[in-house]
């Protein structure tokens, strides 16, 4: 019969395919067997499993990106910029296979850095943090929230002053209180003592109290005195001289008033021009007569050139401030519109300093400020130990499951065990080819999936045994077993994959590694347990088995007399 032979041919092809797959997966997962043939061995053993930090040691850092100063349409760009910059810095550091990625979590943007196999964690962190933050700012009013913040601080200062005044009035030690509380660095350590002074040496509100209020020696002025510096508690100690020569010896406790205009970071506002618009920076001596000052010359990229031109045009005659890492470097007054995209930073640098700044700027300025919010580190030896232990656990688990299957299902179990070995080799090969990072949890997921992988076979074989007992031939019963068990296998595995999918998208490292290997494991195991096991069984099982049902773990007397 031609159909028969073509079916048989197809089966032979399928079996040959299975054997081929097994050999390839076996070689890729354990290339050591090819050691006798160095070229092949070298080619194959180059593929390595990408081990996670917890297995080879290293550090995982999570930074929060502060995007409050970035226009929402540029956020992604800025984060990408930060990622590139960190990558460049780490590469300069020479760490093997670092990973830098951005992630969004709720409303927060994060930059995640993983440095495997690194020895000096502190140095690496320094290197990442060291990234310079270059900002160009223009003059501007402090915004309302800044003003509110200062009002709040001043209110608290005044309340504190009032409290200390009450203490003084109730007989508290004036000089001790001054030492503890005063914000006047000049007099604080002397218990607030200001020594003798003539009229006009202090601000007018202060003078008024000392010279006009007729205080007696040792008397404390009963109210707070507000001046431009803040709130004062004033003690009149003594006076000497008369008329214009009169001098007063007084002491005070100052509670300072703060003003946004005292701080350069509040009087300049962001312009959108930052280090990310930088093309390159060089250190040079300023042009002019003789040897000039060391300075850092900047060249902007196209967008930066445009922005800088607009900025200089808008701010003619005003200051543009250049901040490096949050510190004001210079704030030159714009003389003319600059359209060539060039600027220089001077700041009393030595040439060496200028050179270092230029290098840092060239490696890249961070377009967003980053704060470290999470750190996990694993010492390398600990990672290796985890790897060895989990490998032992894997081998023990695999062996135990194999023994179990062979005891329970005999010949069928033996075939399933071979599928299981193929499954294991396939998984290792997939990990090697896909570059998926294998973490400790990933190995756990993998080992667990070995236990789950045989589940499909158990379902099928239980069904097969049932069908044999009902009187079907072994061959028939095997086919029936595969057919009938399919819906259970499908529904069960879909739900496992659903939970693995949810686990994966939940996002953290441990869970992700576990979910990925579990998901792949469930998918691959469906293939090996069904397709590969069936192909092998179809190929191996023929009429020889009918009189030997013990070989599938059934007693002959349990088989009902067949009527087919």
């Amino acid at each position, binding site marked *: 019969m031609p159909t028969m032979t073509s079916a048989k041919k197809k089966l032979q092809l399928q079996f040959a395919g299975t054997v081929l797959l097994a050999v390839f997966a076996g070689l890729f997962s354990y290339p050591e067997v090819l050691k006798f043939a160095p070229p092949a061995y070298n080619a194959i053993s180059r593929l390595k499993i990408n081990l996670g930090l*917890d297995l080879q040691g290293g550090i995982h850092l999570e930074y*929060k990106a502060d995007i409050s100063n970035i226009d929402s349409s540029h956020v992604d760009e800025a984060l990408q910029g930060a990622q590139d910059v960190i990558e460049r810095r780490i590469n300069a550091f020479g760490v093997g296979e670092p990973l830098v990625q951005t992630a969004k*979590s*709720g409303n927060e943007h994060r930059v995640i850095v993983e440095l495997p196999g690194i020895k000096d*964690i*502190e140095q690496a962190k320094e290197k990442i943090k060291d990234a310079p933050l270059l900002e160009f700012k223009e003059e501007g009013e402090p915004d309302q929230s800044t003003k509110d913040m200062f009002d709040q601080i001043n209110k608290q200062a005044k309340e504190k002053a009032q409290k200390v005044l009450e203490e003084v009035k109730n007989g508290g030690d004036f000089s001790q209180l001054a030492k503890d509380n005063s914000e006047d660095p000049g007099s604080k350590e002397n218990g607030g003592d200001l020594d003798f002074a003539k009229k006009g040496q202090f601000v007018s509100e202060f003078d008024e109290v000392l010279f006009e209020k007729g205080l007696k020696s040792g008397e404390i002025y009963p109210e707070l005195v507000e001046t431009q510096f803040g709130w004062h508690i004033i003690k009149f100690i003594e006076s000497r001289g008369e008329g214009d020569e009169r001098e007063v010896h007084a002491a005070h406790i100052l509670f300072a008033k703060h003003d946004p205009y005292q701080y350069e970071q509040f009087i300049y506002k962001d312009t959108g021009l930052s280090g990310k618009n930088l093309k390159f920076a060089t250190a040079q001596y300023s042009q002019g007569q003789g040897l000039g000052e060391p300075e850092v010359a900047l060249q902007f990229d196209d967008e930066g050139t445009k922005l800088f031109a607009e900025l200089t045009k808008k701010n003619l005659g005003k200051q543009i401030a250049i901040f490096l890492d949050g510190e004001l470097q210079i704030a030159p007054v714009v003389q003319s519109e600059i359209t060539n995209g060039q600027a220089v930073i001077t700041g009393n640098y030595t040439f060496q300093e200028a050179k270092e700044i230029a290098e840092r700027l060239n490696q890249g300025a961070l377009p967003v400020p980053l704060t*470290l*919010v*999470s*750190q*996990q*580190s*694993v*010492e390398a030896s600990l990672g290796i130990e*985890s790897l060895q*232990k*989990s490998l032992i*656990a*894997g081998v*023990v*688990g*695999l062996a*135990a*499951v194999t023994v*179990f*299957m062979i005891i*329970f299902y005999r010949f069928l179990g033996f075939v399933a065990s071979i599928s299981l070995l193929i499954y294991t080799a396939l998984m290792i090969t997939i990990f090697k080819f896909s570059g998926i990072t294998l973490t*400790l*949890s990933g190995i*756990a997921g993998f*080992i*667990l999936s*070995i*236990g*789950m992988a*045989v*589940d499909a076979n*158990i*379902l099928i074989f*239980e069904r097969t045994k049932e069908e044999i007992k009902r009187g079907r031939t072994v061959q028939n019963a095997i086919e029936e077993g595969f057919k*009938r068990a399919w*819906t*259970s296998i499908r*529904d*069960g595995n*879909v*739900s*496992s994959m*659903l*939970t*693995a999918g*949810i*686990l994966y998208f*939940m*996002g*953290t490292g*441990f*869970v992700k590694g*576990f979910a990925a290997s*579990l998901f792949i494991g469930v998918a691959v195991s469906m293939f090996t347990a069904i397709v590969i096991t069936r192909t092998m069984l179809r190929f191996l099982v023929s009429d020889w088995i009918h009189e030997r049902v013990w070989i599938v773990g059934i007693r002959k007397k349990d088989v009902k007399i067949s009527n087919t």
Partner: protein
Amino acid sequence: MFNIIGKAKYAYIFSGILVFASILSLSFWGLKYDIDFTGGTLMKVGFADSVPSNQEISETLQHLNLGSLIIQASDGNIALIRYSADDDKTNDDVWNAIREKYSGATQQSVDFINSTVSKELKSKSLQAIALAIAMIMAYIAWAFRKVSRPVESWKYGLGAAIALAHDILITTGVFSVLGHFYGVEIGIPFIAALLTILGFSVHDTIVVYDRTRENLLRGSNKEGFSDVVNRSLNETLVRSINTSLTVVITLLAIYLFGGLSIKYFALALLIGVIIGTYSSIFIASALLVTSYNLMVKK
């Protein structure tokens, strides 16, 4: 054939006691969270010869005023030092203080998690569990859509979901007890374990439901619903136990040989798999019959 459904009463009582005990333990003792969920720092320090007493270490660190400082000695001359601060500066200070006092000390690892991150992890974990249960319920209701007699398909989904909640509650309860008596902490790995238990347990339940569906579709009308369910349970019993055994074997391998880092992760899975197997045999299907009986009585 075992009369499993007929003995459902005892299973309900047994599960009721376990669930009640778990709720009691959870409400009185709660769970011990690790820094994944509380935020803060965990520093592992190895000492040259032996770990100094907790008292001595905490005196060494006293001047730093660390909030909720906990020191634990661990295997291999290692001390685990925890505190609520989660910034680099404090960590450096702590390490410097230790290094000055104990010259042979080595810093094995420093992990810290900002409290906003940990809060977010906590809420995400709960969301993931709720989402998983909801999706599994929906999937089962869909997969069993063809069976609507005598019990509607959504009841299969509900039955599976109740069994799942049961498994998770009891596993969490066990860890609450372990936390109280042995200081076992739960973190992200525990959540991963719970979600895996969900997947595994529902897998088991589905196999039984699937057999019930098949028997219902082919069955004669003479057989009552509870008999069909009972027969299906018996037919899948060996498979349920064998599958669980293979998984238990592999988990035991991880628990015994896999090293400290994943020991409790494996334990959580182990407990969950055993409870899950029990609930798919004794609870999930019994719930179908109970809801059927209630419907008939009406």
